[in-house]
C-alpha cells in the first residue's frame, strides 16, 4: 500500500512546508522563490518518468509546459474560461497531442528519439511563432479583468501558488504510484533491455507512448497556471530550450529514477541558479558552472545525490525512493 511508504508522507511534509513558509510571514518574495522551485520539481518529476524510469532522453520536455501555457492562456483570455478548468483542459489537450506524437516518434530508439524530441521542440516553437490566434511571435497578454474571478490580482497570485503546490504534490505521488505498479515495472524492463522486455510480452511502443503522454499532463497544467500568473506568454519564453536542458541537469544531480532525488535535484539546482543569476560577479558564468556540475555528476557520480546517500546509508534505500 502506498500509505505505508515513507516517501508518500515525505511528499506531504514537503507540500506542508511549501504552504506554511510564505504564509507565516506573508512573504511574497519568498513565495515567488518557492513557486519557481515547485515548478522545477514538477518538470523534473515528470521528466524522470521518461529518463529515469524508461531510459529515454527527452530534450524537448519543456514543450509540454509551454504548450500548456498557451492553451491555458488562450482559454482564459479569449474563451473566458475559469482558471482551473482551463488548466485541466490544457493538460488533457497536451497529453493527447503527446500520445499522438508519441505513437509515431517512440518507434525510434535511444539517441534517435532524443534527437526527434529536439525536432519536436523546434517545430512547435516555429509553429506557434507563426500561429495567428496565439499572437505569433509577440505572444498573448492577459487583461487585468482575467484575475477578477479569483478575487483580484493580489489574491490570484496566492491561489495560483497553492494550485502549483498541489500539482507538485500530485507529480511526486504520480511518480511514486507508477514506480511500484505493474506498468512501472514494464517501464523499468524497457529501460534495462527493450528487446528482452518485448519478448516477455510488453508492448513497448504502447508503454512508451503512454508514459510520454502521462509525463506531459502535469507540466502542461503547471504551464497553464504559471503563465496565467505571469499574465503573458510568448514563444521564446514558453519554449526555452535551455530550461529543458537544465531540467536534465537537475535530474542527474538529484539522482535519476528516484522520486525524492528528482525533487532534491530540482530544488538545489533552482536555488543555485537563482543565486548565480542574481550575484553580480557570477551571473555571466551560471552556464559554465551548471555545465561543470553536470560533467562532474556524469563522470563521477552518475547516480546523483541519492546514489551517495544509498552508498553511505544503505538503510535509506528502504525509506527514500
Amino acid at each position, binding site marked *: 500500500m502506498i500509505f505505508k511508504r515513507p516517501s508518500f508522507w515525505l511528499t506531504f511534509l514537503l507540500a506542508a512546508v511549501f504552504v506554511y513558509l510564505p504564509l507565516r510571514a506573508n512573504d511574497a518574495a519568498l513565495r515567488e522563490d518557492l513557486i519557481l522551485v515547485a515548478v522545477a520539481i514538477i518538470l523534473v518529476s515528470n521528466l524522470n518518468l521518461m529518463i529515469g524510469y524508461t531510459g529515454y532522453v527527452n530534450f524537448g520536455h519543456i514543450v509540454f509546459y509551454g504548450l500548456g501555457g498557451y492553451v491555458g492562456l488562450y482559454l482564459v483570455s479569449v474563451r473566458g474560461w475559469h482558471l482551473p478548468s482551463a488548466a485541466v483542459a490544457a493538460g488533457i489537450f497536451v497529453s493527447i497531442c503527446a500520445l499522438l506524437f508519441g505513437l509515431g516518434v517512440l518507434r525510434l530508439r535511444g539517441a534517435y528519439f532524443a534527437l526527434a524530441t529536439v525536432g519536436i521542440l523546434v517545430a512547435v516553437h516555429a509553429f506557434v511563432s507563426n500561429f495567428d490566434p496565439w499572437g505569433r511571435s509577440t505572444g498573448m497578454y492577459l487583461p487585468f479583468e482575467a484575475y477578477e474571478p479569483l478575487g483580484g490580482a493580489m489574491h490570484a497570485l496566492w491561489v495560483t501558488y497553492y494550485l502549483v503546490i498541489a500539482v507538485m504534490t500530485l507529480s511526486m505521488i504520480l511518480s511514486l504510484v507508477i514506480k511500484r505498479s505493474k506498468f512501472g515495472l514494464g517501464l523499468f524492463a524497457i529501460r534495462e533491455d527493450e528487446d528482452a522486455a518485448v519478448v516477455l510480452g510488453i508492448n513497448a511502443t504502447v508503454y512508451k507512448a503512454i508514459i510520454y503522454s502521462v509525463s506531459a499532463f502535469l507540466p502542461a497544467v503547471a504551464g497553464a497556471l504559471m503563465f496565467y500568473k505571469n499574465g503573458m506568454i510568448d514563444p521564446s519564453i514558453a519554449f526555452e530550450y535551455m530550461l529543458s536542458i537544465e531540467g536534465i541537469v537537475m535530474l542527474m544531480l538529484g539522482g535519476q529514477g528516484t522520486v525524492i532525488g528528482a525533487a532534491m535535484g530540482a530544488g538545489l539546482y533552482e536555488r543555485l541558479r537563482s543565486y548565480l543569476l542574481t550575484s553580480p560577479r557570477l551571473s555571466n558564468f551560471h552556464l559554465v558552472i551548471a*555545465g561543470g556540475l553536470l560533467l562532474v555528476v556524469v563522470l563521477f557520480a552518475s547516480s546523483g545525490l541519492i546514489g551517495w546517500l544509498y552508498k553511505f546509508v544503505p538503510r535509506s534505500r528502504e525509506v527514500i525512493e
Partner: protein
Amino acid sequence: MIDGLLVGAVYGLAAMGLSLIWGVMDVINLTHGAMIALGMFGMYLFFTATAANPYVLLLPILAIGLLLGILVYWMAVHWVLGRSQLMSLLSTFSVNMMVIGIGTALWSTSPYNVNFTLKGITVGAYTFTGNHIAAACSALIIALLLELFLYRTRMGRAIRAVADNREAAELMGISSTAVLAIAFGIGIALALGSGALVSTLFPFTILSGAIYQLKSFVVTVLAGLGKPLGALAAGVLLGLLEGAVTPFIAVSWIPLIEFGLFVVVLILFPRGIFGRATA
C-alpha cells in the same frame, strides 16, 4: 536557389563532422553547435587581427579545431564510451554549456560579422555572391580531402577499422584510444571550419551555433550515419530545399518544415535516405 545550393555545401560540411563522430564512436556530439560558434568567432578574431584572406585563415582554425577536439575527447568523451548513450549525450552537452557560457561572458549575445566580400559572378539576370561560391568550394575541397584521408591513408583506415569493430582493431595493433581521439578532433575541426565559412556569409552571435547544429542533425539523419560524402549531398539537398521554398513562404516557417521533415524521415527511414538496408 543556387545560393541555397552553395550554402547547402557548408551545411554538409558541418554535418560531416557530426556524422563522423557519430559513426566512429556512436556518440552524438552535442558540443557541435558550440564548436560551430567558436569557428565563427575564431574567424572573426583572426580576421580583425590580421586582415588576411579568410580562406587562408581557415587552415589555422582547422588546426585549432583538431587540438580542441582532442582536448574535449579527453575531458568528456573518453570516460563515457561504452556507458549508456544518455551519459555521452549529457557529458558532451555539459561541455557545450561551458563553451556557450564562456562565449556569452566574453562576447555577449550581440551579433558580429566578418566584413569581407569577394566580387560576385553575374550570369544573365542572376548574380552569385563571391563569398557563397568561395565558401562552397572550400567546403567541397575539405570534404574531398577528408574522403581521401579516410580511404587512402593509414590513419584513415585505422579510424574506419575502429568504427567497424573496436576490439578487432585493437587486436590488429591499433591503439584505439588515440584513433578515437583523432577522429573526434577531426569532427570538431570540421565543425569549426564550417562555422568559419558561415561567418563569411551571415552575421552571427555566440548562440547561432545551435541553429546549425540542428540543421546538422537533419542533414546527418537524411544521409544516414557515418557517411561523410552522403552528409555533403544531404546538406546540399537541404540548402536547395531552403532556397526553393523561400520565395513562397515566410522565412519563419522554415524551421517547422525542416524539422517536420526531420521527424518524418527519422520515422520512415531510420537508416537515412542514402543509407543501405544492411545490418
